[in-house]
């Protein structure tokens, strides 16, 4: 093969890492809003809750395609091993997202069956989230690999740990969704969002604590990564920051701040994301293949990088603008007639 001057792997790691995190945060909060939708008191509240994400949810979901195709393009070996290993969670997630997506459209065109589409929206959001949590848990646990292929069974991904991360993600996305609703609503509905946000927050903190204990017990390499000298000193800011943030988030859910719960939730996700990255680095197929081993050929990565570096900033600027235009509280009179 040809010798290349530039190593594209770190660039693609950053792009893909950013893309996946963007998806988790942004589709995370609108899936979370969908989960909370099921608990919303009354029709008017439900309309408001759905309105708050109506203009932006589809843009958020498109990042799932970019994430999937990006993994396929930049780290195809990881794609070829991980995706079949989580065959059923992926299937369930896709079908749930289909239902949830069309529920947005059809709820207003098909008033006769509004309750059906309401359920499709809420359960679709919850099931998709749970399935993503299972993918996360299975990913952290690692996969049975033979050569360049997944060699386990399609049900291997369902373990106590992955079920736990599935439930944990329900609380996590719920917290993001509640933060978003605090930002976008006011009055009684905002109080309702804060109340549910507090429950989700407790779930998230328990989940972070349990995963932080469970993973080093499960994999010796993770314990070594965190608890050997000098790593323990370098990495200690991660848990310390998490604790400080948790305190701040709890306070902001209880006082009158409007933006802080959403920001705090996102920062908690960032720290958890960094924590998982530290545990697994430099693996992309955990405990088997590194980023470099799973990377596509330099020619492939270069060919795609040209267009990505051009298109991605434009997409991001436009997305930012669309959030700016839709800033402010949602109101009952808006939309949906």
């Amino acid at each position, binding site marked *: 093969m040809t010798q290349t001057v530039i190593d594209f792997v770190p660039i693609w790691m950053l792009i893909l890492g950013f893309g996946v995190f963007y998806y988790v945060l942004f589709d995370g909060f609108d899936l979370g809003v969908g989960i909370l939708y099921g608990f919303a008191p009354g029709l008017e509240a439900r309309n408001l809750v759905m309105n708050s994400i109506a203009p932006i949810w589809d843009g958020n979901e498109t990042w799932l395609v970019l994430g999937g195709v990006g993994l396929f393009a930049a780290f195809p070996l990881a794609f070829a091993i991980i995706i*079949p290993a989580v065959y059923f969670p992926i299937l369930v997630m896709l079908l749930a997202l289909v239902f949830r997506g069309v529920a947005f459209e059809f709820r207003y065109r098909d008033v006769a069956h509004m309750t059906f589409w309401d359920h499709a929206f809420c359960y679709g959001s919850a099931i998709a989230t749970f399935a993503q949590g299972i993918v996360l848990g299975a990913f952290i646990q690692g996969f049975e690999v033979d050569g360049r292929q997944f060699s386990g069974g399609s049900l291997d991904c369902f373990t106590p740990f992955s079920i736990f991360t599935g439930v944990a993600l329900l609380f996590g996305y719920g917290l993001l969704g509640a933060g978003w609703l605090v930002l976008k609503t006011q009055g009684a509905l905002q109080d309702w969002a804060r109340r549910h946000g507090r429950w989700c927050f407790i779930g998230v903190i328990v989940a972070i604590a349990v995963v932080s204990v469970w993973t080093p017990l499960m994999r010796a390499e993770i314990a070594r990564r965190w608890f050997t000298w000098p790593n323990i000193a370098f990495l200690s800011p991660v848990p310390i920051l998490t604790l400080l943030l948790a305190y701040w988030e709890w306070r902001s859910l209880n006082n009158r701040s409007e933006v802080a719960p959403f920001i705090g939730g996102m920062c908690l996700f960032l720290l958890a994301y960094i924590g998982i990255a530290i545990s697994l680095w430099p693996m992309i197929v955990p405990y088997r293949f590194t980023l470099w081993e799973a990377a596509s050929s330099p020619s492939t990565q270069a060919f795609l990088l040209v267009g990505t570096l051009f298109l991605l900033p434009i997409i991001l600027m436009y997305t930012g603008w669309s959030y700016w235009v839709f800033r402010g509280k949602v*109101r009952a009179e808006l939309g*949906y007639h």
Partner: protein
Amino acid sequence: MSLDPVLLSRLQFVWVIAWHILLPAFTVGSASYIAVLEGLSLVTGREIYFRLSSFWIRIFAVSFGMGVVSGIVMPFQFGTNWSRFSDATANVISPLLAYEGLTAFFLESAFLGVLLFGRKLVPRWAHFIAALMVAAGTLLSSFWILATNSWMQTPVGYEILDGRFFPKDWTQIVFNPSFPYRLAHTVVAFYVTTGFVVLGVAAYYLRRRRFLEEGRLMVSMTLWLLTILVPGQILLGDLHGLNTLEYQPAKLAAIEAHWQTGSRVPLILFAIPDEARATNRDVLEIPVLGSLVLTHDPNGTVRGLKDWPADQWPPVAIPFFAFRVMVGIGLLMLALIAASWWLRLHDRLFAAGWFLRCCELASPLGFIAVLAGWVTTEVGRQPWTVYGLMRTAASVSPSLTGADVLASFIGYGVVYLVMFSAGLFFMARLVRQGPAETGEGEAPIESGRPDRPVRALPSEAEPEVESGRAS
């Protein structure tokens, strides 16, 4: 009976892609049609183009939404069910697919919102530009997807190391031998499909004496377009066939059910191919015409399937019949257009009830032809995923059992039936409502799917968005 994960994975892929392909078959054509209407409205200033454009934009929005949702499923199929194929070919095909995703995403976020909801918010020329860009975007998506598909049919520009494909020349990979023909043939097929939908809708109005002006304009415009495209499509199909003869002769032999190599071969109009005995039953054929059509020379040699080992034969009956369905529909379309010219010259185009009825019945023909053509080319590619190099049986994810795939297949089956029937129902309702009602300004935004920021710019329709911040 044991469940075969390869067969079930193929059936599942057929199911999800067959539904999905129906949407681009309509959105590619209608996006261009909308751009033309917008352009005409801008240049002539005539109100009717504006009404028609607004009407088709609404239908376009529903179909585009369904296309996006069913499209999200597609890239994951490569991973879940075809992981060996993904591992082997990713270095070559993954950037093509990724470019499709980036382009589609880029256009969706940037221009679709302006097209769907920006009528009152941007100047008319900007709305026209948005329509042009969306049309260009659907064509670019087709470009990348068909480049990928064509490379699987006629792979070039690669080298094989350790059983995996590596790129050597990106120009060759993208512009591989079958790509130009496939792209032209497919895009024209999408245009023709949309043309017959528009024609059918217009005929529906004319027969019920509603929206007469709109109906007449749509019938006349569309028939002009189809007069050029349908014969052109038959010509393109012939060229594509010559290309297949050169690069995928076994596929062509299956399409024509030719078992023996020979010159002056007949053109088989109908037969029952018998794959076990490698012969045809109940044959209806025209002597020598086969060589003439396929090689453009009465003495031309056409290779038969027996030139290849039987384990490299594609299924014969499926491409053979699917091809005849496609060609038959092409000829039906041609007949309808010839009839339209006879009526037009006798000034009876909008008066002949039987003709309008035929146009109504013909509206799904394009979709059937697209599916038949796609079955012909994809089943004809078998038993390979990468033609001549990688077998379908060696492409499937090794971890899957038959029961796994059966379960997922049922899941996709149920969900797609619900989703597509609901979508079809809503589109039919939009058609019944007709252009006048939908033409009145921008309908209230009913959902978030294609909903885009422009709608929140200060406007009489939605002033609350901006004002809510103070409270």
